[in-house]
């Protein structure tokens, strides 16, 4: 359960970004979360509300977009979706793939703010 730590880091980052833009009234936070990030989506949503209490982000929504796992196949030289998170290989060539292209993201993509 490090999702509370992640939520607190998000709040720090958002307040910094808001201050740099003269203060934003944030209504929703859009987050990209990779399936291989080690962060649990529902635990983060749960932690978000708690973490926001008493901060300028209280009452804000957290909108999460899940980023799938994509690997680079050294054989066919394509970006492919492996059969599962514990079979990191090309689904066609069946060659093991060490390069992860997407799936590790924990990234604040955008803020939805009062116009």
């Amino acid at each position, binding site marked *: *359960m*490090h999702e509370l*730590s*992640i939520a607190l*880091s*998000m709040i*720090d*980052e*958002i307040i910094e*970004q808001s201050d740099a*833009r003269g203060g*934003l009234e944030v*209504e*929703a936070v*859009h*987050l990209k979360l990779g399936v*291989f*990030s*080690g*962060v649990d989506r529902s635990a983060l949503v749960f932690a978000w509300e708690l973490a926001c209490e008493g901060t300028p982000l209280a009452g804000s929504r957290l909108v999460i977009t899940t980023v799938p796992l994509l690997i680079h196949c050294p054989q066919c030289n394509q970006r492919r979706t492996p059969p599962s*998170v*514990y*079979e*990191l*290989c090309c689904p066609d060539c069946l060659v*093991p*793939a*060490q390069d*992860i292209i997407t799936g590790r993201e*924990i*990234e*604040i*993509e*955008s*803020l*939805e*703010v*009062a*116009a």
Partner: protein
Amino acid sequence: MSTRMVEVRAKVLKQNDLLARALRERFQSEGTCVIGLVSSPGSGKTAFLEKLLKTLARDYRVAALVGDLATENDAARLQRATPNVKQITTGTICHLDAQMVEQALASWDVGPLDFLFIENVGNLVCPSSYDLGEEFRFVLLSATEGEDKPLKYPTIFNSSDAAIITKMDIADACEFDLAAARRNIEGVRPGMKIFEVSSKTGVGMNVVADFLVDQLTNSREVLAAQ
């Protein structure tokens, strides 16, 4: 009420990643090989580390930072191998982060080192997200835990550089399927180096120590060439 979108594109763990990168650069410039250890609770991290420290301390300057939620028990155990041990108690936090490592080092006059080990809190989930600036991350899996641990915790296995299978002296008694364990590790982290050890009997420990000495020699050569 109308809203507008403000593009941010910020990594949530940016501060940790920046700090970890600074630590990594510092360790490299000082010629210290830093190894992080992650595993579930009770997989034998501390026993493994105690043995490894004893082996390496004969010829090298070694130290260990050890993370736990509470108690200084692990530090006391490791001090049988080297006096250079410092406990980081995290309170309720389930993982170490780069700032905890930096702060522990700032208040610790340990002198120049060849090897620094950072033993994380026993947890196969949370530590995977936090870079500590280590050069290598070892993930430990004990024979008693069963061969499917890599499949249950693929993220931490994938974020590690080598897997250490511990408690091999009792693997048969536990009906541990070594071939399946190796196959599962390979599935979540293709090409990963795998060591089989028994901290109790010492079998396999020299192979790990030799691997680390080779890494140290290589990185020192790179440093000297710069």
